[in-house]
């Protein structure tokens, strides 16, 4: 590819379980990216199809209810894949086989077998693929920098807490165990170790060596929907890498008005010479404006009770310009397509990342440490 080429992006789905709406401004702002169409599978539910059509109209691009047909378009170079987890692997394989580069929202597939299929397809097709959400954000960038800083000494461990201050908790009277992974899609909830914990896992994955053991705790619930299904809205993991370094994380959806910037995003890196603390919500400008505070309505919209696509009022604005790192991620994909370097977080990284999370889920369900790779753990 000639570096000055522009790349056409096909947006596959605006599913509620995805972040396609967050990617659109990135694509619009990038001088070498242009959105060329929106596509969806023909069996998507009517509400989703309506939403897709609305976005297509808003963007002034065609809407195609046939992904394969969309993949035949010569003006499509990149597929921005943001469907439900259960559909992603199949769509990624089809896109790769059509010779399209991939921007995959969060998880490549619902299990390791699906990840392996995507990896094989991407390798065979020789396309570039990036899973942009985890490796480019402020917390990870700062954490990685601190881990490499000689003032830290040798890294002994890393401890991270990332909470989404969203939703309005109504804690159930009874707490209980957390079921293993397997079901990701629910209409009214997300599995929050996967949704929120994944950021901390990526930081741990970057700074430590390969993880070899995972321990998990969960079951103290914020939301009745999660408790009713024995799935987690909050969990904590303890991990050990192949060099004996120790990591811990706490992650979940903890309710609005619990933090001025929408939830802490903080990590401690323990070294032989010092302990570094990094906070992705700082530096920030704190704002306490009486009329705003006194009149603020923290209640989530009835249309988005868990605030998947919205957030509460904040009293601190972090100064970083690209907190989630999506702009950096897009630059990374463009550079990869240009042939400059492979993406920092591609399919193999994503597979390893999911494996850690799956081990975490198994640990939550069993109450026992789970070895990684998972094949070592047995069925």
């Amino acid at each position, binding site marked *: 590819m000639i570096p000055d080429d522009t790349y056409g992006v096909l947006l596959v789905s605006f599913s509620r379980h995805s972040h396609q709406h967050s990617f659109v401004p990135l694509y619009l702002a990038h001088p070498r990216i242009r959105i060329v169409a929106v596509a969806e599978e023909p069996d998507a539910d009517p509400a989703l199809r309506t939403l897709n059509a609305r976005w297509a109209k808003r963007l002034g691009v065609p809407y195609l209810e046939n992904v394969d047909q969309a993949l035949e378009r010569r003006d499509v170079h990149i597929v921005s894949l943001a469907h439900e987890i259960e559909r992603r692997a199949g769509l990624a394989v089809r896109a790769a086989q059509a010779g399209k580069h991939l921007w995959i929202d969060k998880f490549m597939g619902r299990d390791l077998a699906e990840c392996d299929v995507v990896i094989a397809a991407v390798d065979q097709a020789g396309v570039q693929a990036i899973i942009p959400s985890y490796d480019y954000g402020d917390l990870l960038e700062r954490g990685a920098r601190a881990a490499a800083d000689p003032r830290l000494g040798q890294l002994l461990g890393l401890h991270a807490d990332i909470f989404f201050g969203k939703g309005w908790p109504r804690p159930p009277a009874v707490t209980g165990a957390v079921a293993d992974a397997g079901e990701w899609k629910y209409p009214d909830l997300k599995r929050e170790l996967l949704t929120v914990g994944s950021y901390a896992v990526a930081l741990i994955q970057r700074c430590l060596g390969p993880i070899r053991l995972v321990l998990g705790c969960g079951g103290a619930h914020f939301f009745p929907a999660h408790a009713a299904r024995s799935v987690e809205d909050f969990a904590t993991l303890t991990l050990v890498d192949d060099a004996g370094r120790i990591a811990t994380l706490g992650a979940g959806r903890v309710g609005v008005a619990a933090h001025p910037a929408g939830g802490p995003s903080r990590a401690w890196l*323990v070294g*032989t010479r010092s302990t570094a*603390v990094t906070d992705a919500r700082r530096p920030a400008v704190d704002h306490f404006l009486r009329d705003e505070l006194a009149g603020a309505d923290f209640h989530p919209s009835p249309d988005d009770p868990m605030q998947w696509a919205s957030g509460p009022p904040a009293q601190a604005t972090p100064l970083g310009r690209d907190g989630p790192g999506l702009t950096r991620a897009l630059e990374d994909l463009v550079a990869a397509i240009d042939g400059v370097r492979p993406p920092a977080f591609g399919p193999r990284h994503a597979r390893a990342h999911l494996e850690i999370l799956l081990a975490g889920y198994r640990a939550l369900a069993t109450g026992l440490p789970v070895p990684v790779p998972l094949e070592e753990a047995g069925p």
Partner: protein
Amino acid sequence: MSPAAKPLPAGGADLVVAAAGDQAEAVRALATRHRLRAVVWTGGGRPRGADLPVCPAVAAALAHGPVSLFCALAPYGQLEADVRLCLDVGLRVVCAGPPTTSRRSGEQLAARAGLAWGGLLAAGPVSRRLAELRQRPAFGRPVYLRWVVGGGQGLARTWWALRDLLGQCAPLLSGPPLELWVLASRRGRGFHAVATAVAPDRAAAQLVVAPAHLPWGGDAMLLGTGGLLTADAEAAITFAGARPQVAAAPALYAELEWVAGALAGTPTPVAVETLEGDLRLLGALRQALRLALPVHLAPAGVA
């Protein structure tokens, strides 16, 4: 006027203190309220700038004048012998952790009047304020405790710090841990230890001891269903320069309330169960270091 010759502050007492060099700020805080007869720096030497009466050993320190209390903020090789010496001459003794790693010695010491150990973190303002706020109805039910402290220099000191952290589970979560996993690693004398604890209603704690000293009480966070409580190691005074340093106002050091409690209270003999739990925790730390794997402790193992 030498520090030891200063008049006794109102309400203060004559102390002999054993402390590590990185606890100099806490020792200075004690000196604002008490008369320090002597400070024994457990690592030897003398911290820079510490205008305190230094003595190489507790036995010699007892000759400096009347002493009300011997307090050990950090463990050291001679500690058990010094504790016995002080008890023998009728002094009260308070240690930030168990003064011995021997079960037999521990049982003997635990039975002696005038000795108490532990409770340093609990006496501090962070712990007390967290415990108060945790009771507010708006806090809801506790879900998660995170606490990161320094002090991981040597196994014994790491043990004391981890023990102290675990003591926060009962007042801040729904009760003492029902499940406890201990992990540890070391490089030279620097120890990194983690306790992952689960309370009766599935609330969890991730408690971390880092080798490097963290100012003041470290970083603490308590998450409940109704919101979040946080306290970080940023303290009252920050010296921003080529080598930034932070210091807390003396009154904020946990050591002050801890010593005050030791002086005011009637120390009750240490419970055998407490000693038992302390030693099992030490055993778990040793095993975790050896195996580089999490070590599970049954509930009886938690102090």
